[in-house]
């Protein structure tokens, strides 16, 4: 399988990574160079694989669905880019542009 420039634009959008247009050709070549080696997996017969994978996972213990809060030695607003009243601030959402200046 191979990716196109449109594929790279699409996955960059999914990953929230800005990719300049002039970098697209290079990324297409690099990703296809890597994906070409992944095609080796297609040669492995699928029959029985899922059972082996299930057997490998058998007996894997599950921990309690609980967590201990970690005491922080510094307050969040000392390292957060922007905070107010205990909340992290983000830019206005485009969909809120018509709702007036309420931030």
């Amino acid at each position, binding site marked *: 399988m191979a990716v196109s420039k449109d594929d790279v634009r699409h996955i960059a959008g999914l990953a929230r990574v800005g990719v300049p247009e002039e970098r697209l050709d290079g990324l297409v070549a690099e990703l296809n160079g*890597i994906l070409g080696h992944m095609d080796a997996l297609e040669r492995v017969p699928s029959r029985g694989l899922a059972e082996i994978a299930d057997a490998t996972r058998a007996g894997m213990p599950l921990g309690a669905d609980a967590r201990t809060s970690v005491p922080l030695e510094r307050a969040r607003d000392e*390292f957060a880019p922007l905070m107010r009243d205990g909340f992290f601030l983000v830019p206005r959402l485009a969909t809120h542009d018509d709702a007036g200046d309420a931030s």
Partner: protein
Amino acid sequence: MSAPREWIPAGAASIAAAVRERTVSATDIVRESFDRAVAVKAGADGLNCILSSDRDASLRAAESHPVGGALAGVPVVLKDNIATTTLTTSCGSKILEGYISPYNATVATKLHQAGAILVGKANMDEFAMGSSTEFSAFGPARNPLDTSRVPGGSSGGSAAAVAAGLAPIALGSETGGSVRQPAAFCGIVGVKPTYGLISRFGLVAFASSLDNIGVFGRTVDDSALAMQVLAGDDTTHDATSAPRPAPTYRTDSRDLTGLVIGKPREYFPESLPALMREQCDRAIDALKARGATFRDVSLPHTDLALPVYYIIAPAECSANLARFDGVRYGMRIDGDGLRGMYEATRSKGFGAEVTRRILLGTYVLSAGYFDAYYRKAMEVRALITKDFTDVWASGVHALFTPTTASPAFHIGAISDPYEMYLCDLFTVSANLAEVPAMSLPIGRVQGLPVGGQVIAPKFGEVNMFRVAYALESELGAEAHR
């Protein structure tokens, strides 16, 4: 005990014993570490192995620390992806440049409780993605044995710091060989424990089903001593921590009578350079001289390990690195609205290799490709794991292989991404199968260190160290010639 002129080359156990007996003070040892850093140019104008350090703070910590503990007064260096409340935790990335964690990793706490003194945070490939430390946003680290060459990666700064004599022990992290490969390139010992044996709490996540914290030491005994301090249950902080006590890794025995060591044919391909093969053959003879029996074995799915790894690791990295978005910590670059801010921050904050892996991982997890790539890779991973369990079931106690297919290469020599991934050829399988493995020096090729790898069954570190102690003892000074 007669006082040596320099303590750090004497090793962690000797330092700790001398500090406990008050033959030397922890501050003298820490001063020696910083003097050594100046002498070898550990900073950006030289080896570039240390990203942050604070001499005065380390000296104050040494002065105020109670005398005692298994690592009393021992200077240690931590990879820059291990959280500490002093010094940076930048992960070698612009996106976390200058970031100081508000809490300590469990390993940092354990080292402190054992009396060790943090003397620096080490350079690394950005977010541990790389095999040369050339992908650090803060410039490449250099190999102390030949500064025109890489120290390996991604934990290259930690390995270089130990090889250069700044500390007898350092910590790195392993996802596909990032401790063993730099250990081999720098002529020191590197240990990747069983998945879950050492707590990962406070290790910045890369690929959660593969990540381990690993140990560098100048000697097998220093590595075993550090493992003794670090291994053990931390289930209250880390869901992947194994709820079992650590056995005793240090031993005086150098006898391998009764131990069966496998030589997997897939790790000795025709393409392995003759000089590398000669060093391995000499190591095998040394192990036989100590009583081990060798047996030819096969791990038939080894050739699939790299494709499997380079699907699973990027997939998991694309999920883990989603947290770096400019909202809660780290760099923030304003853009057009919220989405524009995300994209600008991540575009400017991540380097080329991290971006490539995030995109690759997002692709293999995306609709229409998940089954063909990620699900298939996870299933083939089970075949690779079964290769190992079949070998153990046949009566083999450990495996011996080369750690890498070549010694350290020149900085800038590899530009193709997949060619760089090939550096992990002999190391990724142990991560996929979750088994312990370690590299130790077995000789030199054209003056450059070569590492031999010992692999053991899950939680089989006791036998793994037994083999390593015997090999180190039998080879003696030949391991560095």
